[in-house]
């Protein structure tokens, strides 16, 4: 399992799992001791906790190859059963919790992209509830975000460079002319 992660191209999933880039980056992935980009203990703790729980498929009572129609039907059935409004009063809390889980399950499995990600996780033996996955994704996103940060930082420096010469004599745009006019007026004062 350790070797399969990061090197298999999974069709339809997001680019970040299937990297077309240089072998250097692939090497970097396999080096990591916990085989997925875990930065912190808290995620690991959450995963250990989650491992003991049912997978979304088990929760909905369908097989892993269930069609979207089956998923929908199963969700509707369970939702009707566990909705706080119709649950027996002495078990409201338990039922509400189940309802929320069922809803999460449905949301993940009904969205093909999320389902693909979830299936992959499941294959690796991890079941992450939606919100936990969001944090995991948050870590993933962090890397994207740092890419983003580099990008916009360079965009900002480019903006500054351009703005130095923006109103040079040749620029005849309306805005440039007005700016020059304003500068001249303020110089006169």
């Amino acid at each position: 399992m350790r070797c399969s992660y990061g090197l298999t191209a999974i069709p339809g999933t997001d680019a970040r799992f299937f990297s077309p880039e240089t072998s250097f980056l692939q090497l970097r992935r396999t080096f990591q001791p916990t085989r997925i980009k875990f930065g912190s203990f808290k995620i690991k703790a959450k995963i250990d906790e989650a491992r003991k729980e049912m997978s979304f498929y088990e929760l909905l009572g369908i097989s892993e190859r269930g069609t979207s129609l089956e998923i929908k039907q199963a969700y509707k059935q369970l939702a009707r059963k566990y909705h706080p409004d119709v649950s027996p009063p002495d078990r409201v809390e338990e039922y509400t919790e189940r309802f929320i889980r069922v809803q999460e399950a449905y949301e993940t499995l009904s969205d093909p992209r999320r389902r693909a990600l979830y299936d992959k996780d499941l294959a690796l033996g991890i079941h992450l509830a939606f919100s936990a996955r969001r944090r995991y994704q948050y870590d993933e996103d962090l890397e994207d975000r740092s890419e983003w940060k580099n990008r916009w930082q360079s965009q900002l420096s480019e903006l500054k460079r351009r703005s130095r010469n923006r109103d040079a004599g040749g620029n005849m745009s309306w805005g440039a002319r007005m700016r020059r006019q304003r500068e001249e007026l303020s110089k006169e004062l």
Partner: protein
Amino acid sequence: MALCASSFPAIINWGAASDPQKSTPFASHFLGGSDLVLQPLKKLNQVKKRPGGAYASLSEGAEYHSQRPATPLLDTINYPIHMKNLSVKELKQLSEELRSDVVFNVSKTGGHLGSSLGVVELTVALHYVFNAPRDKILWDVGHQSYPHKILTGRRHKMHTMRQTNGLAGFTKRSESEYDCFGTGHSSTTISAGLGMAVGRDLKGERNHVVAVIGDGAMTAGQAYEAMNNAGYLDSDMIVILNDNKQVSLPTANLDGPIPPVGALSSALSRLQSNRPLRELREVAKGVTKQIGGPMHELAAKVDEYARGMISGSGSTLFEELGLYYIGPVDGHNIDDLVSILKEVKITKTTGPVLIHVVTEKGRGYPYAERAADKYHGVVKFDPATGKQFKGNSATQSYTTYFAEALIAEAEADKNIVAIHAAMGGGTGLNLFLRRFPQRCFDVGIAEQHAVTFAAGLACEGLKPFCAIYSSFMQRAYDQVVHDVDLQKLPVRFAMDRAGLVGADGPTHCGAFDVTFMACLPNMVVMAPSDEAELFHMVATAAAIDDRPSCFRYPRGNGIGVQLPPGKKGVPLEVGKGRVLIEGERVALLGYGSAVQSCLAAASLLESHGLRLTVADARFCKPLDHALIRKLAKSHEVLITVEEGSIGGFGSHVAQFLALDGLLDGKVKWRPLVLPDRYIDHGSPVDQLAEAGLTPSHIAATVFNVLEQKREALEVMSSRN
């Protein structure tokens, strides 16, 4: 700092908190704030040891309470100027407090939640960096302006949001100087912002102009028109593209989240997920450096080329239009936002700049994050469980009835198709979509295109039903006239939200559709007085195949008449109204939902010994001439009632009466229309009273015409 490290607003149960509903707004916040500051330190320390505690906003359990949450820092901010001395860490805490305040306020009044939650950090960053009201900050559509309103001196009025005499649900110039442009319809802020920027340049001033627009609003043509002009004029302004991948409303259909509509959305996502090859960028930069000083233009071209190659196809779109693209930026990271905005602010002569900010709708409130529609628009709800308090009604909304009627027609006729402009839920066409996925078209926020698109479909022999709100139809008027009516193409217009609309206010009010539709030569114009009539009119419209037709229906629920069997209407005879009550002396001729008010007025007058005739005109064009002649000849008084502006049904009736010589006789004709002013937002009952179209007003008008002034006053003063 202990206050922000733990998950906020956390599990603090303020048993001693003041009763939030009754507290006098301003003073108690301040007092509450100051003594709450001392107390929390202990309690917060207790809860600090949560696993995964740093993700403060993604709280798992139900930690929101119905009592006003503790907001020590927010309590010290009344206007943006009070924020200027905060550190970035404090800004983060402020965002959290602002977020919980928004959730609390919307839970009490209802309103737009998801969008406001998505822009909390952006709002804080904007007000921190820029100096409103001198710097202009414009919010497109305005439904995400709740945090903005809280920060700009209206926090104490948030409990009146969308209510009569309260805060408007959108930005409104007359409400506050911090709302620099009134919004409600989308995609207007870049245009307005450019206007303000150019005005500033002409006056020689130096303030900043920032327009915040969403990716949904970006699908409208006006945004491109504005960007194109902005690029050409090259005036300094900042456009912030708030991208949360939600283009249509509700942000889901009945079965789950909708993938965004349109090619633009995929371009934007490519922008977001693109992993630029930084090596190439470095190479490009290196080349620039080598080229050196004097060769600015060549260097600029090289860099531009490199950017075009690596930053994804979307950014070059904005670049081509002349806006400098920066992004994508994490819209929930205050650090990033503040540094970017600061940098752009201090750079002189930037020209137009577009900052692409990525946010998540409903962020920070777990129920909203998980909901398919992201809690875009909600009624009052319980913050702890996210459950909305939806009232129980015996009847469904006209919107639902329309959808059911259309589905029934479409079952019988495979040529019927439906078109809407990013309003699948609001028009009820999500139901149609579920039943006929191939025959329902969502074109994004593009009403003009929707109408001409429908015209094209009609050319091919299909039967298009264009479901566009009455007020949004204003955006597509030329297309209605030139592309549909002039060529006599059989496009059917279903105008929902006709008349007064309640909490959304004048921006969404459908006052003018009778006027602007009925003056068109080829258009058939009709209005149902109840839901059964609506079914029949849908059938009538489906049957009218040689000319365009339209029908209008109000916001709200049906009155409870029996629906036609099989939920399929029967086409009405075009140009024929009906008489509901036979009476004498006075005739009330109503159009659309006003007929119900006429019936109510008639029953009010029964007790005074007057038996009125009440008629339902059904058609404004062609008018039922025979009915009007009969009414005018056999009654002393004829009163036409409609929930529309001047120039509509009443005017058409007057024109006919005049031409037919009926005004030369003894009949007295009086029109009752919406007054010549905009009716502010409020409850539907209040609005109708403000407009003067309640049953009591109608009854009083009758008395006034009959020269019974005392009874008129009686009726007016006895209404409740």
